[in-house]
């Protein structure tokens, strides 16, 4: 391979994540993967497949079933100069680490006046629609986004997943990395072979348009694209913004798009009240009030426990709900 030829293949999202992990582990000895079932089993979604065989039991570590132990270990390792990437097996088990995340993870750099930094990544699957049991389909991002000192990322394409994960591993601060599990295998796309970074904190326009901005992240981006397609068939020009990073929020990109379209719809999977969509909605109205042709609309999960999976598609917004909401915004 020469330096100038960029080779690209199709990968699915979990494959892109796997590649990012492998390449960073090759490049940097300090990278350590830890979590439940990340070793021989390769992770329950196979995100760490092959790493144990390749890098051995010192760098790919099956931990006891103890999430505070996992996050605490990762914090200690990172303070001491390692670059741990820990996996919390499902979004629904991240509440087990909230105590450390809220009380310590994002505070230690400041508390120690910059003496210690925590270059670690917390990987966790995110969101619903894979017909899984309770606690396997959650969207807990708001809890993390409200917590200072950390960053929160949630890609929606294999390309972004690889570049953002590499950037997260190299980031000098803690990054929570949510992986839309519905897309692990469903989302396929071209991914460059060599390692590359995608800057954390930058949104990406996935579809250009002029009459309505749909803002989203994770698996919901796909639903937005489908809805946008349908709307465009009816002659409405929709811009779809994939946030990719939730904190730091790319307000510039959001405001740029909304200033153009004058209408914003934010779609996501979490209980809507107090969600990260609330922050985005508030920021838009607070900063671009005079540009708005209609009230900002949030479309999220209901403010109830997500039902078991037979009904999850009525909890998580689907194309119909996005269309209904869009019509409301457009008709204002």
């Amino acid at each position, binding site marked *: 391979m020469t330096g100038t030829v960029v080779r690209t293949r199709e990968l699915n999202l979990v494959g892109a994540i796997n590649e990012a992990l492998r390449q960073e582990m090759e490049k940097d000895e300090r990278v350590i993967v830890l979590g*439940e*079932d990340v*070793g*021989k*089993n*390769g992770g*329950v979604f196979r995100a760490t497949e092959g790493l144990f065989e390749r890098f051995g039991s010192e760098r790919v570590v*099956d*931990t*006891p*079933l*103890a*999430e*505070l*132990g996992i996050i605490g270990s990762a914090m200690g390792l990172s303070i001491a100069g390692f670059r741990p990437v820990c996996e919390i097996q499902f979004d*629904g*088990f991240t*509440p*087990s680490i909230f105590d450390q995340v809220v009380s310590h993870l994002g505070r230690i750099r400041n508390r120690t006046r910059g003496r210690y930094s925590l270059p670690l990544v917390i990987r966790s699957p995110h969101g619903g629609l894979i*017909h*899984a*049991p*309770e*606690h*396997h389909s959650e969207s807990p991002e708001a809890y993390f986004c409200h917590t200072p000192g950390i960053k929160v990322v949630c890609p929606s394409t294999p390309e972004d997943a690889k570049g953002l994960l590499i950037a997260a591993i190299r980031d000098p601060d803690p990054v929570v990395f949510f992986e839309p599990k519905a897309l692990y295998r469903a989302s396929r796309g071209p991914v460059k072979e060599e390692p590359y970074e995608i800057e954390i904190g930058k949104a990406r326009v996935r579809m250009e348009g002029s009459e309505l901005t749909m803002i989203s992240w994770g698996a919901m981006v796909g639903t937005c694209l489908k809805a946008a397609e349908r709307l465009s068939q009816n002659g409405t020009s929709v811009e779809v913004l994939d946030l990719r990073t939730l904190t730091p929020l790319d307000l510039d990109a959001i405001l740029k798009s909304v200033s153009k379209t004058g209408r914003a719809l934010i779609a996501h999977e979490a209980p*809507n*009240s107090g969600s990260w969509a609330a922050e985005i909605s508030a920021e838009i109205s607070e900063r671009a009030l005079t540009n708005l042709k209609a009230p900002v609309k949030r479309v999220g999960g*209901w*403010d*109830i*426990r997500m*039902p*078991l*999976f*037979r*009904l*999850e598609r*009525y*909890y998580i917004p689907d194309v*119909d*709900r996005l269309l*209904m909401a869009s019509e409301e915004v457009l008709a204002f």
Partner: protein
Amino acid sequence: MPLKTIVRQETQRLEILRYDGSLDSELDPHLDRKTLLEIYQKMIELRAFDERAIKLQRQGRLGTYPSVLGQEVSQLVPAFCLKPSDWMIPTYRGTGAYYGRGMKFRHSLLVWAGDDRGTVFPEENRDMTFSITVGGHLTLAAGLAWAAKLEKKGAVVLAYLGDGATSKGDLHEALTFAGMMNLPVIFLVENNQWAISVSRQKQCAAETFAQKAHGYGVFGLQADGNDVLAVFSAMQQAISRGREGKGATLLELETYRMANHTTADDASRYRAKTDLEAWAKRDPLLRLRRYLETLKLMDETRHQELVKNAEALVDEEIKAYEAFPEPNPLDMFANNYANAPKALIEQRSELEALLERKMRLGEIVEMPPLEGRFP
């Protein structure tokens, strides 16, 4: 006086029934024949169900299902030892525990089909839903036991957990409370040697889980979890302690997860076949059968009849499960608060509008009837 031993502790293991069906008569809990046969029948039914549930999942007629194969004794017998007024909280790997308490298989199927209507326990029981978050039910179990202590009616709480769950801080805080407040609770560790792909050996460096009891001032005991008599006997002991105000028990039952972690797992990726073969010899069902044979309570004919009846029962339950109408989406709004706040009423209307739209579009043909309490 300088370096002196100030505490000495022992951890014991109970085994009664040998693999060949013979037993240690000194410790025989002397179960009556009826009980033995009832347990055996339930074990056969449970195994028949388990096998079929896995098949249903493969056929796309069920969601992810966690098998209890090989754990029939450690699942059924503890639950079986309770009174209805006792509390029980199994884990997600709890089909046997619920069955031991009289829950119908159709409801277990509904739950694993992702249908909230499966959460139906016999009215008279104090059964709890399981926690999918591992260990998430343990401090709650301590709270139930606290209530039982205050009620002064001799009720006990049985909380199942796995070997993996022993690593969660929840167990620590639950045991601390249980020890400190002398609570009538039994933490039953079904040590099936695996937490998905993580083996017992990688979970904890202590020789046994039972010995953890000493760190909290509670009673600890290990038993052969595939031995119906040992489990029965250990449970009687633990229950008596609870009823008599002697406090909590940490009971470790050694068994083996003979199946994949769930239908979504492939255990061949991480464990050796030889292990399985060794444990197959200790099969709890086979062991009880041999014992029943020595008691002349079982023979091939009677066994086959039980199997046939079990199959019929399971068929029946599957039929009943599949006869359930689709759930009404609006039902998700029921039972979230005693009185639904305005925001939920509004959101439910939104969902209603969506459903109407879908009916107009032909995406939904017919709305099933409503259940549950709202607002």
